[in-house]
């Protein structure tokens, strides 16, 4: 049993962190499961009482700021533009309602599981993260923050305070598709998230696609995105080639084998694009 600090001001939290590295605790939904058989003697910094980390707001410029300690349930309950439908769908797939009520968006990113449900959806929204320390605030694109399995760019004296979605990414529609071996409470085998804006002539004006659980970190499919721009949205799904997913590095594990992940990632990308093109309602 170590020290437990639950500051109510960001500055206090950052001061504590500057003094010594601490295990950061938010909703606890990844923290406690990793400590079933034995609780290590560690010092904890609980960030759930920091007002700066709470809430979702629109900025003057139209961008969206999601406090890092926002729970998935709070996100689901917030009125957000349709581009965030994929993010909301991902939120509904994070564990059961108990987990959604406790688990936080920031915690999902900092835990940096290759199968984190939040990452692909946020990648498809061009999200940035905001990291604060006593030195000030820096922003990183999400794919520059999540670096590998359980590895992020957060320095030990920094806190992830917010996730920012630029106004430009909030146009159009968003989708999220998750493949697992059961309905609820399941770690993803493959996830695909996408957002799309269409030109008046029905061609793809903007598209962002990301695949999760098929590499150490979720991956944007930038080459495919570039291919799709200017093409008729209705044909987008048919333009997906295996080579567009060549950057994925799926593994064999108890849930599925690599070949299956690669194959179904492609299927889900096509389905995601078909859904976005048709702008079908989120099921």
């Amino acid at each position, binding site marked *: *049993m170590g020290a*437990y600090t639950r500051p109510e001001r960001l500055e206090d939290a950052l001061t504590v962190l500057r003094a010594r590295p601490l295990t950061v605790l938010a909703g606890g939904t990844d923290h406690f499961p990793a400590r079933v058989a034995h609780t290590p003697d560690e010092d904890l910094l609980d960030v759930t009482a920091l007002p700066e980390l709470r809430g979702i707001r629109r900025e003057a410029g139209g961008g969206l700021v999601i406090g890092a300690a926002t729970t998935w349930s709070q996100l689901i309950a917030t009125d957000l533009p349709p581009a965030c439908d994929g993010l909301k769908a991902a939120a509904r797939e994070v564990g059961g*309602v108990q987990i959604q009520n*406790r688990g936080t968006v920031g915690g999902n990113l900092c835990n940096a599981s290759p199968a984190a449900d939040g990452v692909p959806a946020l990648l498809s929204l061009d999200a940035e993260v905001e990291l604060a320390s006593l030195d000030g605030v820096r922003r990183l694109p999400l794919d520059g923050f999540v670096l590998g399995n359980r590895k992020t760019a957060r320095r030990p004296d920094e806190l992830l305070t917010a996730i920012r979605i630029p106004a430009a990414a909030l146009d159009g529609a968003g989708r999220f598709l998750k493949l697992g*071996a059961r309905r*609820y*409470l399941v770690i993803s085998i493959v996830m695909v998230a996408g957002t799309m804006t269409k030109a008046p002539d029905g061609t793809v004006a903007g598209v962002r696609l990301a695949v999760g659980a098929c590499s150490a970190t979720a991956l944007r499919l930038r080459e495919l995105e570039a291919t799709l721009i200017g093409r008729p949205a209705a044909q987008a799904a048919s333009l997906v080639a295996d080579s567009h997913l060549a950057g994925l590095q799926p593994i064999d594990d108890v849930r599925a084998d690599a070949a*299956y992940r690669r194959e*179904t990632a492609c*299927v889900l990308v096509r389905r995601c694009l078909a859904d976005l093109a048709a702008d079908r309602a989120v099921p």
Partner: protein
Amino acid sequence: MTTATITLTVNGAERCVTVDPARRLSRVLRDDLGLTGTKVGCDAGDCGACTVLLDGAQVCACLTPAAQAAGSTVVTVEGLAEPDGRLSALQRAFQRHGAAQCGICTPGMLMAAADLLGRTARPTRDQAMDALGGVLCRCTGYQKIVEAVLDVGSNAPDPAMPAAGTAVGARVARLDGAGKLDGSELYGDDQCPAGALWLKVVRSPHALADFALGDLDAWAAATPGVVSVLTAADVPGHNSFGIYPTLKDQPVFAERFVRYRGESVAAVVVDGRAAFEALDLSGFPIEWSPRAALVGIEAAQAEGAVQLHEASPGNVLIRGRVASGDVDAAFARADAVVEGSFETPFVEHAYIEPEAGWARPVEGPDGSRRIELRVTTQTPYMDRDEVAHVLGIAPDRVRIVPSAVGGGFGGKLDQSLQLPLAVAVWKLGRPVAALWNRPESLASSTKRHPARMRAALAADRSGKILGYRFHGDFDTGAYASWGPTVAGRVPVHAPGPYRVPAVLATSAAVYTDGPPAGAFRGFGVPQAAIAGEALLDRMADRLGIDRLEFRLANALRAGDPTATGQRIEASVGLAACLEALRPHWRDYLALCEAAEARGGSMRLGAGIGCMWYGCGNTSMSNPSIMRLGLKPDGSLVLYNGAVDIGQGSYTIMAQIAADALGAPLDRIAQVCGDTDRTADAGKTSASRQTFVSGKASELAGLDLRAQLLRLANAGDDAELSFEDGRVLVRHDGRTRAIELAGMPADAEGDVLVGSGTFDPPTEPLDADGQGTPYATYAFAAQIALVAVDLELGTTRVLKMVAAHDVGRAVNPTLVEGQIHGGIAQGLGLALMEEYLPGRTENLHDYLIPTVGDMPEITCILVEDAEPLGPYGAKGIGEPALVPTAPAVLGAIRHATGIDITRVPALPHRVRAALRARQRAAE
């Protein structure tokens, strides 16, 4: 170490605790506030049993640090009842619908439902499923839980208790239900006294390894809280246990080497629960020398494989065999032969209550030293005898008082913490408690036997089955456990519930370095049914006959001989089950055809599975003794040794005894499973309690009735009424009163005791497996409608209809509950469950079905009375599971055209099979 004083409002009252701020809220509630209604199944947010409301929203208490509950409002299951203590509308809906079985997930389910109903008074089915999706239930199949949640608003009245003589067949609400709904029921970890020592087992991280213990005394002296370290040297009697008296091949504490990952090598006893939680075994002085483990049957039977047990050359524990008719001739003259190989994995019981309990030294009436264990168990009498064997004392010096059992399914038929607890108590002379965490439970407990099976089926062109060949190798893991039971039961059941004139069915149980494979709902029959039913489908297709009609044409009927030469003269309801399914089957086929015509990547498929299941032990005596006592005040007590593990025997036995006696059900109290106070009713296994102990209950009721009628000199059709201090006997218009007050009472305080003993008549099997292995068989058929996504390989079971011949449904609600739950486990076996030592030792890598994975289930109860059974009844526990996987796998085959020969049919395996077929076609 830091502690903080935290104030929170729990169930309306302000509470203050001084604890580590990082302490799990579940521990605060249970240990610091004594609210044990909140259950802990995994400590990892995987099972949802610990769900409570935190400021009105459902959360896992095991994932919530105490600090984050400070200033908040918490509601637990203890806070759900009305202010006057009556059950709330939600709790009453659960009781009315039979939504609680073992009850261990019930608090979590109730709180998840309370969260939903707090937001939405009249939820839709989808809303209910989403709200309950985070709570796992292993008993109910979820259907009755969802029905209960959707029916809360109706506030329907509680079902009335049946009048005298009408209990059997009535939908009586579970008699032990209230405690499961208000959080007062005490499970293995709910009743440990303060001040007890706590025991933690040191387990092997290797599947096969030599080891040497280091300086235990020095480690114990240097480790805070350690009172004692127990090893094999501390076992006072025999350091061995096992189901069969001649096969006690498993040590309480391994000596020199271990045979499976999770095996116990020592136990550390510490002073108190806090020391138990803080205990770090990483520095325990033990040196391991791992060896190449025998993983799987092939490795264990390979040339030069290490022999794991001295008495078992070739690592073969035992073989089984049933041979009848001329099989070679049958295959020679067949018009069609189909054959195949099939494979199943280790499957985990995944009861939501991990192993837990405590024991204490007690003094016998003669001053002798005795021991008392209060543990979660399916088999108190075997526990008693095993503890006595290990301690080297007479069985009557051991008392087992089962706690409420939070699910068993066969997994609590073996010893777990009983034996180390007994050794600790005997050595230390103090109360000792133990609790396995989920990874320990998964690693150390028994599993369903993995099977590798080859089978062939022969038929003539008219669709008459001529012969069946079967061989199954069963991975029995490191120790014998119930391996002989599986090896013996499988060949008898392998041909399925059909007329098969020529059969050669053989089996072998093979030792490996896997976890001990033991008893799991069906004893190998579910595995064998996967092989047999798949071949029936292929044969029906080969011959161009509808799969249901093919089964019906070959179904066993009363008077037919089985492959063991037994003629089952009565209660053979398979044909009736199939006929009842026929209209549903045709509907399913029509839906599949329509989906096929629509095209696309989603295909529907229909499948069917049949089964038979012998109730009780195979060719072995398995008596049950029940006693029904009458108190001087006119009240009745059933001394019921049949442990209720959620299936409902507590209710069933009382229903039967009440009707046999002619008393109203609500007059009967019970003493359940206490080895000092109840007679041996045998194990809760083999689908035997309703049939065997139910019959004993009937006989006990009839015996007490006969005694009363004799005292009143009245005839058989007299009416009894039980009043305060007397029994009135009405017969032929006369009423005689039997005054009870002056009658001499026995040690329990009973003035009259009716006793009933029933041992189902069986005969031993000869070398060819000929004889009468069971006194009766249950029969069933289930059909499944599935949707398979051809591109993803995922399978969703949409609907099932289950027709079961139960002889007589003593309590239809409980029977349906067994069917729903069996289907859930069968669905898991077919689609998602696979235990891999070291890799799936938690409930997020080891998947069991959630509420969202279950089909809509329709039950059809066929009542073809069994003359030997109580009021015609026979078993349902295992029969419920056996046909499900075959029906689901047959449906996948129907949808896709691919043969699933290895379960679970995980999406990537289905896709691989589809790809392979595509390649073959190209």
